[in-house]
């Protein structure tokens, strides 16, 4: 099953970081949960790493799944793209049980990815990562003129916006007129 391979491979780099923690608290065996995004690729993530997400943490704390049950019921996050979920899982693994540093430089520099990441992180309620992402967005705005910001983030000017609204209204008006015409036709 290719999906589990993907999952274990992504969880693998987190192994060394789990070692000292389990050494510190050896009596508690680590439990794992499974998540997948829009692409259905399943990621295996430790409960410790998932603590970062208030949403998932809330879900699993009430479930009391066994390993098998968890494996059989991965959490579906259909609204999150596969690569974005991968980033989130990687971040959670890297920062498992560790105090988060004041800066995080490993965030995506491409704005498309960053925005999707912000929305995913917001949805999953990962507070620290959301702060880093918002800092990153602020960095991308820094020192830019309004025109540059508009260009980078593809934001229409007010004039364009108003024109689009007018156009939409017109179209809606036409459609409404068409419908009434059609309705009138039906009535005949």
């Amino acid at each position, binding site marked *: 099953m290719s999906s589990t391979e993907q999952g274990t491979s992504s969880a693998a780099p987190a192994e060394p970081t789990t070692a000292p923690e389990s050494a510190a608290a050896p009596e508690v065996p680590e439990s794992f949960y499974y998540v997948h995004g829009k692409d259905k690729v399943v990621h295996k993530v430790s409960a410790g790493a998932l603590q970062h997400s208030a949403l998932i943490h809330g879900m699993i704390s009430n479930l009391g799944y066994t390993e098998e049950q968890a494996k059989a019921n991965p959490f579906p996050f259909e609204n999150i793209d596969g690569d974005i979920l991968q980033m989130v899982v990687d971040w959670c693994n890297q920062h498992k049980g560790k105090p988060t540093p004041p800066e995080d430089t490993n965030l995506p520099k491409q704005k498309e990815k960053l925005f*999707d990441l*912000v929305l995913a992180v917001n949805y999953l309620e990962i507070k620290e990562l959301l702060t880093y992402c*918002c800092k990153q967005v602020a960095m991308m*705005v820094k020192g*830019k003129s309004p025109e540059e910001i*508009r260009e980078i983030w593809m934001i229409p000017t007010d004039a364009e916006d108003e024109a689009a609204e007018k156009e939409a209204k017109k179209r809606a008006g036409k459609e409404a007129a068409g419908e009434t015409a059609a309705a009138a036709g039906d009535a005949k």
Partner: protein
Amino acid sequence: MTSLVEMPEHILDKVIGHSNFKDVLSLRQVCRDFRNFIDNSKDSKLPDSKFVKIEISCMKDEIISKIEDSDDSSHEIEYSKTKNSRKYQEKKTMFKNSNIVDVVVRDLEWILKFQKSTFEEVSFYLDDIENQNDTSIHTKLNNIINASGRKIKTTELSISTGDKSPIIQMLQFADPETLKIIQFFSMDDSIQLELGGIARMEQWKKAKELKCDFRVVNWQVDDISHFSKITIAMNSISARDLDFLRKAFLTSSKAKRWFFEMRMFNENQEILRLWGPAFDIENSRQWYFRMKDSEKEEDDSDDSVGSEDSDDSDDSDYFEEASREVLRIVVFQEDHFEQHYHIRFNTFELRAVPDGAIVHNYNGN
């Protein structure tokens, strides 16, 4: 792709919280959604502009606003009344339909909206005397400050004007909790300033230092005796008031240096009767008075404590005595200007009192 505009509000809040004030102003100009969002944001969510000083100079044809950043860089914005334009660095904006004073006030409003730290100094220089009416800058600024309920947080407020009428209004701009230093500079020597109303303001009562070169009239000793430092001009002073001030200085734990400049002083005989013989040097008369208690020295001077610890008990009395401060009052008449007197009160080291001068005891009178 998701656009920045579609982000949930609390995310935009966070982005704004991590941006500096200039970036927020740029974002505000991007589109109306951002503009509405930022305009409706609570002040607490906006970043601090961290400016240190602001100086607004209103001249006949132009208004110049100078803003100093915490990193010592400064910005200068020129507003031309004749061309109805604003110039900042290379960027020039023309305002066809707006009054230029409105533009200045609007810009200031933005600066104040983003200012969370306390300014070191805010100064106004009003040289457009013929224009002191409803359209003047202080009236408009007063309106926005009243509307927002946001007073200017500054340590020092400085007002230079040739017309005393805006002073009370402008003093009200300052947040009394932060204001320590008040400065009024007169651009017309003939103007007299009545202290009555001003002295009842919270800003005045809570301030620590005063510099006023308007000649004050209708004032009471109590109006000024709470300041630690005073420089003030007046027409004259009576011996009785001067003696009240002396007592206020001796009993105050804050008074440091008071300086009175006046045109007339005819009370020498009465003062000699009240204070006893003076020590005369050239055209000045000096009196020295012991302070009420030693609290003042213990608060401010670590040296005396140090010398006390390190020396023998026999010497320590001597050192303590020598480093003690007394009040020195100097009445001075300028040689060349007959109508020009200075009276200065200041704390003075006992050991520096000249030989032959009497140090009067606190309860001398």
